[in-house]
């Protein structure tokens, strides 16, 4: 199958690749860019474990072709923390036990980030509505709602109120591997 040249911004980095037109964004992110925080949980666009932000909007990356994302700004879970500081949403999920197996977590957090960017003080129903396109099998959602509320109540994030997490993010965490001219095996 013939390939095409695409480029996009992922977590602030320009990436460019030759890919098949049919490659799904979720597979592009996971397999070409090596950013495996974005997950794949269904084949019918119901579960939302693949949610990333495209130009700030949550999208299910299993239902977007990588080619359609060309020229757009993509943000994945790996790009949530900045300069070693966790996004308040990440901290909130840890504070309020908003995750267990961790599989839905990246998508949930990105949706929460998009919601808070638009609506810094959502009520519980607004949070539930925002994440209603996403399934979690472990938490029963209540602690996810609390996690997002924690983030809303701590917009400055972790540093002010909470001891630093025990793991320091290296700068490489947000960097994207050089994939220019990578041939996608698809």
């Amino acid at each position, binding site marked *: 199958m013939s390939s095409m040249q695409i480029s996009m911004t992922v977590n602030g980095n320009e990436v460019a690749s030759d890919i098949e037109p049919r490659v799904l964004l979720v597979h592009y992110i996971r397999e070409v860019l090596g950013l495996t925080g974005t997950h794949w949980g*269904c084949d019918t666009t119901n579960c939302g474990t693949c949610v990333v932000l495209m130009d700030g909007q949550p999208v299910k990356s299993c239902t977007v072709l990588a080619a359609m994302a060309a020229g757009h700004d993509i943000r994945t879970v790996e790009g949530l923390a900045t300069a070693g500081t966790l996004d308040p949403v990440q901290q909130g999920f840890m504070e309020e036990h908003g995750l267990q197996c961790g599989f839905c977590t990246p998508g949930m957090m990105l949706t929460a980030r998009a919601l808070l960017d638009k609506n810094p003080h959502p009520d519980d129903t607004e949070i539930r509505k925002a994440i209603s396109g996403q399934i979690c099998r472990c*938490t029963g959602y209540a*602690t996810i709602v609390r996690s997002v509320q924690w983030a809303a109540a701590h917009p400055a994030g972790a540093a002010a109120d909470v001891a630093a997490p025990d793991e320091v993010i290296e700068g490489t965490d947000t960097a994207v591997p050089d994939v220019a001219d990578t041939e996608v095996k698809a």
Partner: protein
Amino acid sequence: MTVIHDRPGNPAAGDADRPIGYGRIQRKEDPRFVRGKGHYVDDIVLPGMLHGAILRAPVAHARLVSIDTTNALAHPKVLAVITGKDLLALNLAWAPTLSADVQAVLVTDKVRFQGQEVAFVVAENRYAARDALELIDVEYDLLPPVIDARKALDPDAPLIRDDLEGRTDNRIFDWEMGDEAETEAVFAAADVVVAQEVVYPRVHPAPMETCGAVADFDAVSGKLTLYETTQAPHAHRTLFAIVAGIPEHKIRIVSPDIGGGFGNKVGIYPGYILAVVGSIVTGKPVKWVEDRSENLMSTSFARDYIMQGEIAATKDGKILALRTSVLADHGAFNATAQPTKNPAGFFSIFTGSYDLKAAFCKVRGVYTNKAPGGVAYACSFRVTEAVYLVERMVDILARKLDMDPAELRLKNFIRPEQFPYANKTGWVYDSGNYEEAMRLSMKMAGYEELRREQAEKRERGELMGIGVAFFTEVVGAGPRKHFDIVGLGMADGAELRVHPTGKAVVRLSVQSQGQGHETTFAQIVAEELGIPPENIDVVHGDTDQTPFGLGTYGSRSTPVSGGAVALVARKVREKAKLIAAAMLETRPEDLEWEKGRWFVKGDPGAGKTIEEIAMAAHGTMTLPEGIDGNLDAEVTYDPPNLTFPFGAYICVVDIDAGTGHVKVRRFIAVDDCGTRINPMIIEGQVHGGLTDGVGMALMEIIEFDEAGNCLGGSFMDYLIPTAMEVPDWETGFTVTPSPHHPIGAKGIGESATVGSPPAIVNAIVDALAPFGVVHMDMPCTPARVWEAMQGRPRPPI
């Protein structure tokens, strides 16, 4: 709303009361997961790795006439296409199941369920592998399928398992527990007898991460490394040694981060074996990751019990006896995961929380043209079915007697002083204070007020229901003389190493799938040794690195492995005592323990911390007789009994009289799992299980049409609750420790999945009482509730 459950302060924020052992602490797992740095099977990339995909049968029952793989093999990116015939040559076409049956790895003779594995393609990437599936031509000769379990034993029913020698019908087993004659006598003399068919429909655990594997066979060393979504890595290693004929020391199973298991990832699926075969055939690592439809259609389903229940009582509400006859649909291969001697799992706990005079159950398992499974989805080995049956029957009895369902339960509970309590089917319940939990739940709910509100609403024609369920769980299998899985006794090992600087590593035989073991098992060691949990690493899931044990399912981690970890920590503590005595130049019997430190009785200033002792144990001092250095230990824990957590649940529903739509307005869950290691994690476990209950009660079902087509094979049809369908949970607890457990802790993970469906259905039936409804089967979808309101409730199958 009353919320009695207390959420203590946040230790990470520097609260002064930060626990060293038990208590609410943040999870050690979270930092990697919130950064997208978890490591799940599909994240694994090995040099030269290839991708496998499975061709699946489009029909439920058919002779395999021919497979033509020519075009698939001609695909430029395809390296191998494996069929049943290839596996027959390797003696791998059939694999033993966890129930002493066999399961086809790839179809050799005929297809027995839709979605069954027919061929395996290995290609350079996952897209090419899928492309090649389309290039395989298979010819089938259709056979009539057996779909309705009730018809599986009809004389003219097609024989599904003609592969089994001497098999003439679709019967798998007949099994019974209790005293039939004694039960009959009690029923014959009872004032009141109520009978009801109660169906627990087929559902699916549907973990967010599907099943998958990466097999890496090294032809030079002969070593197989298999990364798998498995809840029981050690048991898999042994089974792979048996199935594949690879010596067990040459097999390393690695269960990395698992995106939820819920019992779905206990057994060995054909895909795992095929990945191994693919790796052996191609000489490269092979990854196989199923999609959601494959997961729902071919991996372990749950439930599918058709139960004829009968309950006997006196007219003033003393419950005397329970009796049930169950028809169990096991699908085409009996791959049910449970201890060998328990073909119906622990269903015999169906006597529930009540002091009965007699009980009897019989279970008949049959084959049908459906996917195998049965025990999964937080069922604790069929306890979901048992609790659902008894809690529906008690509610139906309450209606018959015109008694309040909570009052009827309170009247019949096993009393605290009766524990340990031997029930009529052979279980010895360890401990319980049922009335205390029930009263707390009623207080949190404002039960009397709710009943008043319901009466007012009924006057106005509004449909409000209050459901009560009280359950006794049985978790922590179990004593090895009674419980084994394919011959492996259900004990669990633990190893603990304290490093010279006082940091520690504890190795488990169990495998978390989100339950927080890396945190809670560190807390157990912290509680026993006084080493802060952040200084303790928990290692699990790698059979080369961890002691043997049976894995995580049936809420057995805390009861069995938790016991092992407490005991191994105590072993280290005792060793530390001897070393401390030498350091302090005193006798061990003169020492006393406070958390983290041995000190001289009567002289609290003279003591040695566990860190100081650890350094000494690795140092140059002369150690006491019999101590050869280091501060390590290992144990295997064979539990004396299972643990019996319990809970009192109350659910409030509102039903739209126009549409039959059920809204769960409130859910109050009081759980008692004995000693609580981490209340935050317990609360999360309960929330998740309650959501399972809402799913099963209102929307989840795997149905089949007459041709055997699976109708629940994707998330378009297999509906799972989102944040919109569940309420803000109200949780509470009591603490009744398990007397036989080293730290008094009982399992909890499956309690809410077990206890919540009957509470919700009881609430729905209660709401529908004005329509004369005494029972309706799950799932209570708007259409099915509407039918019940019209006087036409129907079983789901």
